[in-house]
Every structure is written in C-alpha cells, then in structure tokens.
C-alpha cells in the first residue's frame, strides 16, 4: 500500500505509514518523541481526486504498453 502512495506522488510520513499494523517500539515508554496524525494532511483535501488521477495514469501507461506490444507483434 505504501508503494501505492509513492505512486500517487504523495509521501506519507513514516510515523503514519504502516500497512501491517502499527507497533510501538519496546522503549516507547521511556522515549519522548511525538507522532502527530496531523502530519497525514500531506495527502491534502483532494485525496480521492489524486487517487483517481493515479489510477488513470496507471491505466494510461498499461494501455501504452499494450499498444506497443500489439504494434511490435503485428508489424
């Protein structure tokens, strides 16, 4: 899933990224770092539009590759 985010051009902070479940480190209680959810806002208000645009770009790329293969096979 994180690959999908990079592919969207959005960089999700490490503190927010985890497709496998968020685990706190063993020394968590003795550390003082913070991990605000607000940093996720990097995805922005046009989140779904960006996501759809990403899907459209990938579909376009796939169509291009398929067209090239078809051209090479049939010429």
């Amino acid at each position, binding site marked *: 899933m994180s690959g999908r985010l990079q592919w969207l051009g959005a960089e999700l902070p490490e503190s*927010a990224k985890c497709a496998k479940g*968020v685990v706190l480190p063993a020394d968590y*209680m003795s550390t003082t770092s*913070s991990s605000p959810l607000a940093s996720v806002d990097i995805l922005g208000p046009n*989140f779904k539009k960006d996501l759809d645009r990403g899907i459209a770009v990938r579909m376009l790329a796939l169509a291009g590759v398929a067209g090239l293969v078809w051209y090479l096979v049939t010429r």
Partner: protein
Amino acid sequence: MAERADVIIAWSHGGIPKSVQPEFQRPTRFITVPSPEKWSQTLAGLLPSPIRGIVAKYAPGVEPLRVAVLGFSASCSGVVQMLASSDGGRIDSALAIDGIHAGYDAQKKPNAASMKTWVEFAKLAFLNERLFVITHSSVVPPNYASTTETANYIWNALGESSDFADPPLPDLSVAPTSVHVAAGPATGPDRTVQYPAPPWKTQRRRGGLVILGCNNNDVPRGTADHIYQAKAMLSLALTRFLAARWNNMDPNAPGASCYVG
C-alpha cells in the same frame, strides 16, 4: 521486565465488555479510563503523550505493543482527542460507536473543522494503513449533526457516494436481544424494544475503514437504538474487526509490522 501487550483504551462511558476479552488471543490489556466531568478535560494531565500517560497511570509496568481506542456516544470525544494529540500517528485502530457528532456549518453540513481529525484517520484506514470502525444509529439530535450525517460526511469526504464493501465484510450476525428503557422525562414511557437482528441501514467498507449504520426500532425517540449500539455494535466492532485484525497479525513476526516510536 516490562510486560509487552496490546492495549485497548476505553472510557467508563462505554467500557470494554468482559465477554469479548477472551476473543483477543495475544496478550492484551483492557484499560477503562474514568469518564471526566467535562469531556474537554479528559486528557488533562496526560498530554503531550496520552498513550504514555494513560498506560503509566492505569497499567503500570506495561510496554504497549499496539494501541486501539474505543468510544461509545460521548466518549468518542476522548477518541478524537487521542487522535488529535501528538500520539495520533501511533494509534493502530479506532472504534467509534454511535458517537461522532459535530456542529453544523452555514449549509447545515457537519462542521469541517470538527470533522478534520476523523477524516484524516479515515484516509489512513481507507488505504488500509489503520482500522477505523464507525457504527451509528439513526437518532436525530437537536441542533447538531447526527452520527448518520457524520458517517456520511466521512464516506463522502473520501470520494465515495455509493455503498459497497471492499474487501467483503465478515459475518455481522448478532444474537436476538432486547433493550429496556425506563420511563423518564427524556426517555418517554417505560418500554422494551426487541432486536431479533441488527436493523441494518448501511454496510460500507473500504480497506480498513468500516461504516455500519442501523435504522431505529424505537421510534420516535431512538433511546433504545442508542443503547443497542453499546449492547450489540460495540461488541461486534471489537470482536469481528479489532480482535480479527490483531489475532491475524503477529506483531513480532519479521515484516509483519511497522514500528512507530
């Protein structure tokens, strides 16, 4: 040596039923924080790191592994404050049982500023980076947005308008039960409302974002329907979604987790 355990934080207004606790197969600590007099004060003295503060106070000696927060009705105010805190990025799962409310804006839509934190967490869940289970009744409160309206707001904010479940939802059956409402000025006449099955209205899922909406059986007041959410939907969210997620993932297995410090 400190005990490493998954931690579920709830408030006494909608605590964690003992009946569901055996469903969690890995070491899990169930913390019930006393409900405050004012919900704006629920994290007072626990900031800037409420997870550290709550674990140190209510489960001393525990090193939290994964953290979930559970709210029912007013205690969803505690959940959103946790999400908005400097520990927001560390929370693996949030369960909001018939309690996400917001004021209205000029267009009589849920106030965007009040919904922002919920929407940000929903984005992560949408991408399967977190688990976010929202359940709601169809109770219509006076002068502010209902849990139905806020659930729709979140779903629509992510660009979705139709109902679908991707991946498919698990079995959502619930044993028949009834809810007794004692007579009172706010609750109306004494009555017992039957729930042979959940009165489903909407079932939506995208990745780790789950929205389960119910119709009201207790018309017109809906008091029993709100109580039914605590009685049935709260346990359902804990067992079918949170326990299923945590049981399925071994947090100690290589590559099975990411560490958020």
